[in-house]
């Protein structure tokens, strides 16, 4: 399956990039933009989707400071299928 992992700064954790982008936009004449957050996008082909949560926990994200969701890109659509989370063996 072609999977998409969306990685975001955990709620409440400082997101300097989001702040700077939000501050920059008005100067470019874009008004009314709020709650900007910048994260990472990872897209990959996986044979066994059940491995995805552990992959995310152990390699693709840093669970201490990042949240993530996983989507399947199959059947064209981007229908959301968040998979269950594992506890990460303490970093």
């Amino acid at each position, binding site marked *: 399956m072609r999977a998409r992992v969306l990685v975001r700064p955990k709620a409440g954790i400082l997101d*300097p*990039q989001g702040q*700077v*982008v939000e501050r*920059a936009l008005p*100067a*470019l004449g874009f008004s009314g933009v709020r709650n900007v957050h*910048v994260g990472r996008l990872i897209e990959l082909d996986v044979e066994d989707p059940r491995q995805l949560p552990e992959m995310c926990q152990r390699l693709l994200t840093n669970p201490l400071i990042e949240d993530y969701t996983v989507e399947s890109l199959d059947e064209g659509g981007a229908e959301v299928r968040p998979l269950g989370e594992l506890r990460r063996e303490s970093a």
Partner: protein
Amino acid sequence: MSRLPKFGVIRFPGSCDEVDAQLACQRVGEAVILWHGDRDLQGVDAVVVPGGFSYGDYLRVGAIARFAPIMEEVADFARAGGLVLGICNGFQVLCEAGLLPGALLPNVSLRFVFRQVELDVASTDSPFTRACVAGERLSIPVKHTTGRYYAPEDQLACLESNDQVLLRYGPGQNPNGSLNDIAGVCNAGRNVFGLMPHPEHAVDPLTGPTGGMAIFESIRAHTDERNRALA
């Protein structure tokens, strides 16, 4: 008699090497700091867009600084043939601003690298390298995380055929995976030059090799000549 060149070094929020650039410029002329929010270039002969981490390098290196008010003036200045030198983050800003071709991507190592590198002068036909001898080696430090020069094939071919590559990393010296070992390129008009290495950190024998002087000497020679022509 000709007056010394006057340099303007831009200070963005997050610039780090602007004072270093000012000190280097002052070895061959006069140099003032230009505030990112101003629109006055103070009649300088050459603008330096310095190294550092403008806007924290957030979102994309150089992406936000390019929109600073002063950059509009720099763009006009460049279109009118004024000399613009972009160092490291300044190179990234000039690419983002479309004043130089191509873009800079993360080092293949994905790591910040500080290293003294040997550079080959690929062309002396520019206001920035005219004081060099063809094929001359310059020892100048690099320090960046996003220095891998990239341009689409056609653009790259045209850069090469127009002799717009002014500096290349010497054999085995490419620290970031830049295409064609490109360390610095100029625009078609040859009056805008960007490079990842830091010539301003190679001008003082007390602190290391002085390969960077050639760049500043070149700019002095060029402005001398032009000022004489105007006089």
